[in-house]
C-alpha cells in the first residue's frame, strides 16, 4: 500500500453521492475484477473476471454497463447497474480481439467495440446487438492499425476512434510488431453505416506518437492523449486536439510538463461543463489539468500510478491509482486495498 495512506481521512458512508463509477481492478488476493464505486469512493459491487479489465461503456439510459477485457481481450462483462450485479458476458469472434474500449449507440440498441483484426493487421469496430444478447451483427473498418479508445460524440451519430498505429498479434502477446511503420490516426466514422467522415494523421516526424485515448470537449473537439514510441529523451507533445475542420493541433509549448510524463498518457477525460480536460500519466505519476477555452495547461498534480479519471459533478473529476487511491472531486482521498485499472467510466 502506498506510503502516507494512514494519514488519509476514512471514507464517507456509501450513498453520500449518487454518482456511480465502473472500473476494472485487481483485488488484494490477485483476483482481477470489475467494480462499481460511488462518488465518495466506496465500493458497492465487485465481480471477479478472468483477466484484467480495461475500459467501460454505459448505456444511454444508465441501466447497463459493459467492461471490456484488457487487450488482447477475449471477453466483455455486462452489468445491470440498477441491481448492481453482473448479468452476462460475451466474446469477440475467434479471429478478432477486443482492444479494450467501446461505446453504446445513442438509442442503446447497439454496442460498438474497437477490435484488432490481427491477421490482416487492421482495426475494426465490432457491432453488437444488445437485445440479442450481444450477438455480433457486423463490423466496419477503423481506417487504421491498432485502434484503442473510441467514443460516441455528443451528436449521437459519430464515432471517434483513436487508431494507435501499433500492430500486435496474439501469437506475440503485447509485442509491438511495426514500430518503424507506425501511422497513428484519428478517425471519425458514421455509426449508422461505418462511413468514414474524416481522418487525420500526424506529421511524419511524429509518426511514432501513438494516439490512444480521447475525450470530447468544447465545440466538438476531440482531445487526444498520446504515447511516444521514440526515444525517451526526445521532447514531443503528448496532448493535442482534433477537430473535423481543423485536423490535429498539438498542445505545443508544455515541454517541461511533458518531460515528467515518461512519454505516456494513460487516460483523458473532460469535465461535464466542458471547461476542463484532465490527462493522466501513470508512468510519470502526474495528472495534468487543461483549460479547454484557452488550451493552456492550468495545473499539474503529482499522484503515483494515477491513470483512471472521469468527470464528477459539473466541473470536477474523480481519479484512481494503481496503488489503490480514489480521489473524488470534493471528498477526501480514500485508500482502498485494490489496484485500480487504467480507466473509470462514469455511470
Amino acid at each position: 500500500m502506498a506510503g502516507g495512506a494512514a494519514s488519509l481521512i476514512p471514507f464517507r458512508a456509501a450513498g453520500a453521492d449518487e454518482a456511480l463509477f465502473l472500473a476494472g481492478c485487481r483485488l488484494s488476493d490477485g483476483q482481477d475484477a470489475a467494480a462499481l464505486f460511488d462518488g465518495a469512493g466506496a465500493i458497492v459491487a465487485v465481480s471477479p473476471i478472468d483477466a484484467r479489465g480495461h475500459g467501460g461503456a454505459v448505456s444511454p439510459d444508465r441501466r447497463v454497463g459493459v467492461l471490456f477485457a484488457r487487450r488482447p481481450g477475449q471477453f466483455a462483462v455486462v452489468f445491470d447497474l440498477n441491481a448492481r450485479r453482473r448479468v452476462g458476458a460475451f466474446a469477440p469472434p475467434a479471429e478478432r480481439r477486443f482492444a479494450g474500449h467501446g461505446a453504446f449507440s445513442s438509442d442503446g440498441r447497439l454496442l460498438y467495440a474497437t477490435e484488432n483484426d490481427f491477421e490482416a493487421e487492421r482495426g475494426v469496430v465490432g457491432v453488437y446487438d444488445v437485445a440479442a444478447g450481444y450477438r455480433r451483427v457486423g463490423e466496419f473498418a477503423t481506417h487504421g492499425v491498432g485502434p484503442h479508445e473510441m467514443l460516441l460524440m455528443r451528436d449521437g451519430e459519430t464515432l471517434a476512434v483513436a487508431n494507435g498505429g501499433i500492430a500486435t498479434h496474439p501469437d506475440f502477446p503485447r509485442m509491438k510488431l511495426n514500430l518503424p511503420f507506425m501511422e497513428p490516426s484519428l478517425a471519425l466514422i458514421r455509426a449508422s453505416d461505418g462511413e468514414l467522415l474524416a481522418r487525420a494523421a500526424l506529421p511524419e516526424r511524429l509518426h511514432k506518437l501513438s494516439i490512444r485515448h480521447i475525450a470530447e470537449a468544447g465545440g466538438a473537439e476531440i482531445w487526444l492523449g498520446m504515447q511516444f514510441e521514440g526515444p525517451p529523451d526526445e521532447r514531443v507533445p503528448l496532448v493535442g486536439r482534433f477537430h473535423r475542420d481543423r485536423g490535429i493541433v498539438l498542445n505545443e509549448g508544455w515541454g517541461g510538463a511533458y518531460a515528467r510524463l515518461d512519454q505516456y498518457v494513460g487516460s483523458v477525460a473532460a469535465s461535464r461543463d466542458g471547461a476542463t480536460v484532465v490527462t493522466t500519466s501513470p508512468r510519470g505519476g502526474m495528472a495534468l489539468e487543461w483549460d479547454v477555452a484557452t488550451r493552456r495547461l492550468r495545473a499539474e498534480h503529482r499522484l503515483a500510478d494515477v491513470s483512471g479519471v472521469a468527470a464528477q459533478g459539473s466541473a470536477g473529476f474523480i481519479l484512481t491509482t494503481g496503488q489503490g487511491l480514489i480521489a473524488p472531486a470534493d471528498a477526501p482521498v480514500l485508500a482502498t486495498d485494490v489496484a485500480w485499472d487504467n480507466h473509470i467510466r462514469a455511470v
Partner: protein
Amino acid sequence: MRILVAAVAVVFALPAAAQEKPFQPVVEALVREVLVPAYDAFAATAAEQAALTAALCEAPSQAALDAARGGFGALIGAFAGIEPYRFGPAARENRYERLFFWPDRRGRGLRQVQGIIGGEDDTAVGVESLANKSVAVQGLPALEFVLFGTGSDELATIGGFRCDYGATIAGAIAAVGEVMAAEWNAEFAGTMLNSGPDNDAYRSDAEALQDILQAAATQMELTGTQKLAAVVRYSPEAARPKRAAFWRSGQTLPMVSANVATVRSILEGGVGDLLEDDVSLRGALFELSQIDRALTPLLEDGRPFVELAVDPDAHRRLAFAVSPAAAAQALIAERIQGALGLVAGFNALDGD
C-alpha cells in the same frame, strides 16, 4: 478553481526502498563494464563482417564464402550482447529495427529481400541508398538470407548483385554499430550515470537501473516465449522451426545461448551488492544455468535446427528450456526489482 483539490494534498514519491539504495555505483559498473563494452564489441565485429563480405565480392571463392558465413555467427553472438537494450542510441532512427526487425510476422523482410535479389534492385546497393528502404531489408535477417538462403552457394563462384547487396547490408550494419558505440561512449553512458531533475532520460539512478534490469527480464521473456516456445510448441509434430530466428545459418540456439550469457552478465554486474538477501538473484542465475544444461548437447549436435526441432529427444530439451526462461524472467522482473523497489506501476504497462 482547484479542480483536483483532493488529489493535490497527496504527494507520493518513489517507494522508500528506491530512494535509499546506492544505485549509482551499480549503474556505473554495468554501463562501463557490461553495456559499453558490448556496444564496442558489436561495432568491431560488424566492421569485420563488412570486410569479410566485401572480400567475398571482390574475389569469390568457397574459402571466402565460408569466412563470411563464419563471421555471421560471430556477428549474431555480438548482437546478442546488445539485444536486450532497446533504449538510448538503439532507440534512435529505428536503429534497433534496422538491425533486427523480428519477429517479422507478415514476412515483410523475406519477401522484399527475395524481390530485391530477384529483380536486382540497384537502389539496394550503397549504404545511403539502402538506408532509405524498409528496415526489414537492411539488417541481420536480410544478411542471413543473402549468405545462407536459397541460391547463396553461388556466392562462392559468382560475385554479382547478390554479393553487392550483401556487402551493402553488412556495411549498413557496421555503420549502425559504429554510431551506436560512438554515442554510448560520447554521450549516453554519461546520461545514464548522471541522473537528475534536468536529465530528460533519467530523473534518478533508480530509473537507470530499472531500464537495465527490465531489459534483462524482457530479454528472457522474448527468448523463452518467441525464440523457443513459439517454435517448439507442444510436440515435435507441431514444431515450426522456420519461425525461429536465424534457422538458415544455424544461429538459432547459439543466439539463445548468447542471450542467456548477456542476461547473466547483467545479473552478475553488481546488483547483488544492493540486495540484503540474494536468494532471488541466485535463483535467477540457477534458472539460466538450467537453460544452458538443456541446450548444450544441442549446440554440439551439428544437425540443422529444422531437423533438431522435430527430433523427439532434441525437442524435449528445447521444450524444457522454456520453463527456466520464464522463471528467470519472473525472478528478475518481480523478485529482484521488487526487492530494490524498482517495480513498474500497475498502470505503467505498454500501450494501455
